[in-house]
Structures are given as structure tokens and as C-alpha cells.
């Protein structure tokens, strides 16, 4: 069996007395689209923060394609090819859409020329244009990111992840707050991307999760509750319990089970 994309060993994160992630050991196989679900406060975003280096674990280790990345800085982890989007959409608001992509493409390169004109870099410019076309943002290239609609900012974030040629993509609630049409558009982009790159997605929308995920990990209170294919998860009693009281989500679980 090939090396898992992402593996953690006894990962623990404490905030004072609160244990956000509790002795989490998981292994995510390559070439699969993984979804992490779980009730609020389960530690999903904290898990992403630990993997991307924004937080340092209290204990335990993180391995990316077999390499120990525990303790590396966020920019070092990013340069290894782990890219992520944030739950609250995060782009460079005063730059244009094209500039957002341009700097994202250049950021991993190490050397940033101090005096040559950025515009003279034809290769990067063409990559930017290609990515804009691929994600469907070409018509907005010259617009300042702060003037975009919410759905377009989310697409820009995904475009930024794509243009950096990730090896692992961490998407934190990519469809959160989107209209049904925007959700549909985003889901189809994610599905398209998953053919080329490993993706881990945190998502609350069960319809989306059961539609796109190959594997689902259910987290609760900082630990893994269940792991398996969508059908297995849908049939799992413990998962139902964790979601008890969230009727609409349960409906989706049931729908998926009968699908």
C-alpha cells in the first residue's frame, strides 16, 4: 500500500484546560477525497490549524506523505504543497483578482525579485490567465477582491489554492454561507479538482459531504468517532447519536443510507 497523504500520531492540542484535539491518530490514504464532519466544537478546524502550522500541537506528530512536518512554520508547510482555505474567506482584499493569484503563484518560489517588473513575468501571467479561465473568474480579473460577491471570493480562494499546484488541499467549509447555485458550482469545482489532487474537506452540509466524499471521518470532542465510506457512516449508530437533535442533518444521513 502506498504512503498515506496525511497521517497523525497521538495528536493533542490543549488550550489551557480545554482539550480541543485529544490523542488523534488517523491516516488518510492518497488519491481519495476525505470529508471530516462532526458537531460544532469537535476540533475540525483546530485539526486543520495543526496540520497547516498555524497552531503547534501540545503532543503528537503530523506526517505528510511520510515526512514529519510537526513544528514547521506555516510558510514552510505551504511550500511542501499543503494549501488550505479558511472557514472565514480569506484573500488579499485590496489586490485585484489577478494579483491575488499572481502573488499566490509566486509565493512558493523562494526568491522574489526586488526590482524587475512583476508584469514582465510572462510565464506566471499566463498561468494566472489559465487558472482564471479554469475557475471561471476571467471576467473579474481586474476587480479588486474586496468588491467581489461572497461566492466569487470563495471561488477566488479555491483558485488561489489551485494555482499554487497543491499536493494536498485542505478546504474548511467551502460552501458555508453560499446560495444553492453557488454551492452547486463550488461542489463541481471541488469534484473536478479531486481528480488531480488529494483533498480533505470540512463540511457541515451533509448533502454535499455524501455527494462528493470517498471517505468520511466523524469527529466529536477532539477525537475520531467513526471512519468509513459514506454508506458505512450513514449506518453508524454512534454517528447518529452525535448528531442527535440535529434533525435536518439526520435526514440527509438517512437519505444517503437509502440512496
Amino acid at each position: 500500500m502506498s504512503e498515506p497523504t496525511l497521517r497523525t500520531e497521538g495528536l493533542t492540542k490543549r488550550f489551557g484546560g480545554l482539550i480541543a484535539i485529544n490523542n488523534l491518530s488517523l491516516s488518510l490514504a492518497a488519491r481519495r477525497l476525505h470529508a471530516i464532519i462532526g458537531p460544532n466544537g469537535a476540533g475540525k478546524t483546530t485539526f486543520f490549524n495543526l496540520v497547516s502550522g498555524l497552531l503547534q500541537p501540545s503532543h503528537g506528530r503530523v506526517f505528510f506523505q511520510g515526512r514529519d512536518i510537526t513544528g514547521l512554520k506555516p510558510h514552510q508547510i505551504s511550500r511542501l504543497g499543503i494549501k488550505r482555505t479558511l472557514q472565514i474567506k480569506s484573500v488579499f482584499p485590496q489586490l485585484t483578482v489577478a494579483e491575488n493569484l499572481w502573488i499566490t503563484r509566486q509565493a512558493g518560489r523562494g526568491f522574489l525579485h526586488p526590482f524587475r517588473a512583476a508584469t514582465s513575468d510572462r510565464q506566471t501571467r499566463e498561468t494566472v490567465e489559465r487558472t482564471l479561465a479554469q475557475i471561471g473568474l476571467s471576467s473579474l480579473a481586474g476587480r479588486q477582491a474586496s468588491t467581489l460577491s461572497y461566492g466569487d471570493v470563495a471561488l477566488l480562494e479555491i483558485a488561489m489554492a489551485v494555482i499554487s499546484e497543491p499536493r494536498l488541499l485542505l478546504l474548511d467549509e467551502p460552501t458555508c454561507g453560499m446560495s444553492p447555485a453557488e454551492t452547486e458550482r463550488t461542489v463541481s469545482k471541488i469534484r473536478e479538482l479531486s481528480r488531480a489532487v488529494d483533498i480533505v474537506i470540512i463540511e457541515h452540509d451533509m448533502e454535499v459531504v455524501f455527494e462528493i466524499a470517498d471517505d468520511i471521518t466523524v469527529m466529536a470532542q477532539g477525537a475520531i468517532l467513526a471512519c468509513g465510506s459514506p454508506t458505512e457512516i450513514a449506518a453508524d449508530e454512534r454517528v447518529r447519536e452525535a448528531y442527535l437533535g440535529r434533525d435536518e442533518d439526520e435526514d440527509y444521513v438517512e437519505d444517503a443510507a437509502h440512496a
Partner: protein
Amino acid sequence: MSAKAIERSLWALFAAFMIAVPWIIPALISSFWVSVIAEILIWSLLAASVNLLFGYVGLLSFGQALYFGFGMYGVAIGIQDLGLSFWPAFALGIVASMTMALVTGIFAVRLTWHYFAIITVVFSLIFYFLALTNKWLTGGDDGINFALPPTINIGGFNKSLTDPIFQYFFVLCTAALCFLLMHRLVGSPLGKAFLAIRDNDMRARLIGLNVYLLRLIAFVLSGFLAGVAGGLFAFFGRYASATYMFYHVSGEAVVWAIVGGAGTLLGPLIGTTLFIIVREIVSTHWEHHSLIVGTVAILAVMFAPKGMVGLWNDFISRIAERSGAPVGAVELRTEP
């Protein structure tokens, strides 16, 4: 006339005026104003050093006078104590301020916002008092006076800043070169990375930018600009004094940069021009001219947060919209 044509003709007019200054200003007003304009150019470089940090990287430094002072003392001590000639002394001043920016920057750029502002003030105060008390080296309040060495001395050809026209052009060329370098910088990949950090430093980290290192580079580059300004000012006044390291000087540079337009290339020059002209005209009649500085600063922050250049850019883009000029699709702007 399109917006681009307006800007281009204004640039040509501005360049022509700056070159003609030593002849038309004495004819129109008096030769005193030629040296005021030279002084404006020098101080605008200090404002530019504030602008590079605040307008392009998002760090508000209230301590740029420290690096200005190191530039001044590098020149003065180089000439008076070490017996250096013109260019080595200038280089010493610039290297001294960049080194100081590196040393203090290693600590300062770990912080952001008010913490960064406070630590830069603290550093500049520490060295202000050190300069004030170590009279053997700095001359304290009285400062160091020195005799100007020749700027150019090749064979029989000899030019020094004692020639007012040569001095003006020396200052003009140095300032123009610095603004040109800054223009290249903000349009370069490094400049784009600075803008990204200013906009969203967490996202900048996640796309793989080494935010700490880039902030440190910006800090040292701003030390360069402040150092050039300080060195020029030492040559201009033939002396260096600890009073120019006081935080009052840093604060004025911040006001010039913000009122002129932070995050724009020429904002600092315009802000500096406005305030120094006001100071020169008003201070002869009224000793509380800093009240005007304060009032204008408050008005600018309230009504023109992007400064004078921001107002101008809005005006230009309104003209561009009216004439319906197509906006380049994947054009990378040099100014935000």
C-alpha cells in the same frame, strides 16, 4: 483628454519644473526657496521610508528618525572624526542606518500594529538619549559641525555642495533615484509580496510567504531611505545633531506620509511639500504653526483617508470612467 494623457503631461510638467527650479524660483520669489525645495526633497525621503513600511507592508513606525539620525551621524562622524571623503562618508551613513534597522528590526518586526509602533518609538528614544549623553561622540544637542569635502574631484575638476545649484541638483538626483528605486520595488514580485502581507498576513503565510523575513527586508529598505535622507540632510546643513533623532521628527514624517497618501509613490513627497511650505510661510508670523499641522492631519484622516493622492486618484478614475476607457483585464497595477 484621457486620464493617462493627463497624468503623462503632468509628469512632464513636474519634471521640467524640478529641473528649472534653480533659475525660475530666484527670479519669481527668492533663492531662499530653492533651498526650501531641496529640504522638501530630503525630508520626503524620510516620509517615503514611513510610507514603505506603512503604505506597502502595513507596519506603522514611529521611530524612523532613529535611522535618519544614524545617516546624519554616519556622514558627520565619517568626515569629522574618521577623515573620510564625500562618498565614503555618505556610504557610511547609509550602511549605519541600514545596520541599525537590521538590528532593531530583528526584534521590532516580530510585532505588529500598536506593539510595533511602540517598540519603534522605544528604540528611537533609547538612542536619542544615548546620543544626547555621549557628547564625546555625537556632540549632544550642539551636534557636530564639519567642513564639506568636495563631491567630485577628478583631475582639475572640482565640485562641492557649496555651489548652491550643484547642491540642488545633487539632492534632486538622489531623491529622484530613490523614488525610482521605490517605484521599481513596488511593481516587482517583492513589492507584490509586501502588499499581500499588508492586506492579510495570515493568508500570506498560508500561501508560503515568509512574513517575518519579508517584513525585516522592508524594514531594512526603509532604513535605507531614512539613511539617505539623513546623510543628505547632514551634507545640506554641514552638521549632525541628536535633536533630529527625537520622536517628534518621526511623528512629523508619519503625518506627511499619511496626509500625502500612504501606499502611493508620491504621497510622501506631496505631504512633505504641503507641510514644509506651510511651516516656512506661517512660522515667521506665528510660533504655533504645529497647530495647523495637527488640524490638517485630523481633517485628512477623517475626510481623505487615502491622503491627497487618494483624492487625486479618485478624480482621475472618475474621468477614466466617463471617457469609458477600457480597463486592462489582467493588468498588474503598480499602485493599489
